[in-house]
């Protein structure tokens, strides 16, 4: 294997690099807050449903739960795991395919294992 070449960033480049990475980090924290928020919402909705609060029916809560879960997963994958970044074409393709099958399998199990 050829050795990788060392490239020394100039002070300005380094500065930019650090600033960018800080910004990215700030974005991550934002996403984290969003995730926490959604988690709290999910739990609250379910508790509300339990308490019989008006409006919180099964048909309202369940889709919302799944929506939040899906968004959270997307955030984890795209932000925390950097799937949105360049050089992630292969991971994206395989995770997508995986997700399609992962959706199908439970779907068939709940529809055709129960007659």
């Amino acid at each position, binding site marked *: *294997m050829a*050795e*990788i070449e*060392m*490239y*020394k*960033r100039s002070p300005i480049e*380094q500065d930019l*690099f*650090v600033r960018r*990475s800080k910004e*990215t*980090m700030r974005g*991550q*924290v934002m996403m*984290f807050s969003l*995730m*926490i928020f959604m*988690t709290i919402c*999910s*739990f609250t909705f*379910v*508790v509300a*449903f*339990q308490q019989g609060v008006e409006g919180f029916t*099964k048909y309202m*809560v*369940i889709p919302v*739960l*799944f929506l*939040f*879960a899906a968004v*959270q*997963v997307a955030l*984890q*994958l795209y932000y*925390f*795991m950097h799937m949105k970044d360049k*050089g992630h074409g*292969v*991971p994206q393709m*395989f*995770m997508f*395919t*995986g*997700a399609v*099958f*992962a*959706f199908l*399998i*439970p779907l*068939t*199990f*709940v529809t055709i*294992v*129960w007659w």
Partner: protein
Amino acid sequence: MDLNKKFTPETWPEHPERATLEAKNKFVGFWLFLGGETILFATLFATYMALKNKGPSGFGFSTQELYQLPLVFVMTLLLLTSSLTSVYAMHHMKNYNFKKMQLWLAITAILGLCFLGLEVYEFSHYVKEGFTFGNSAFSSAFFTLVGTHGFHVAIGLVWVTLLIFRNAKRGLNLYNATKYYTFSLYWHFIDVVWVFIFTVVYLMGVIG
């Protein structure tokens, strides 16, 4: 590849986790592995959903009575937070700040350990109530699904501990940067699975 090559924050590559061919291989390979894990958990989830609340005649447990949301909520917060701390660790890894990275990883591990402790507590609580692995199809499916997740957490803990100690003296290099990075991917993936567990198993379980 030379382990002893010394870097400075200025010479540290922008994507240390995939700077060499070996690293790229590990990086892609690990993602593929996660793709396979997705299907593994999907099958476990599917089975759980099909067997939920199924037991022998006169079976006395149901998801509604069994699960305790406060505990699950705390566990969720712990794991989610540990996800953020590992993001911090990777942030410092990319900035070639070894000490801070190790620190954040240690925090991640501690949070993970707390999570695992609560899970062990939860399981032992169920067992005490008589809800054991062998008492119904439901319990088998539940313990297998949630237990497999817990097992993954445990593996992650061992992995990160080994990484922290093994490299404590050596510092960051292009050989172990990938290892740290794949660990963080793994850890996030565990979190992804947990998001579905608390939604599908616990919250949906409570709704019924």
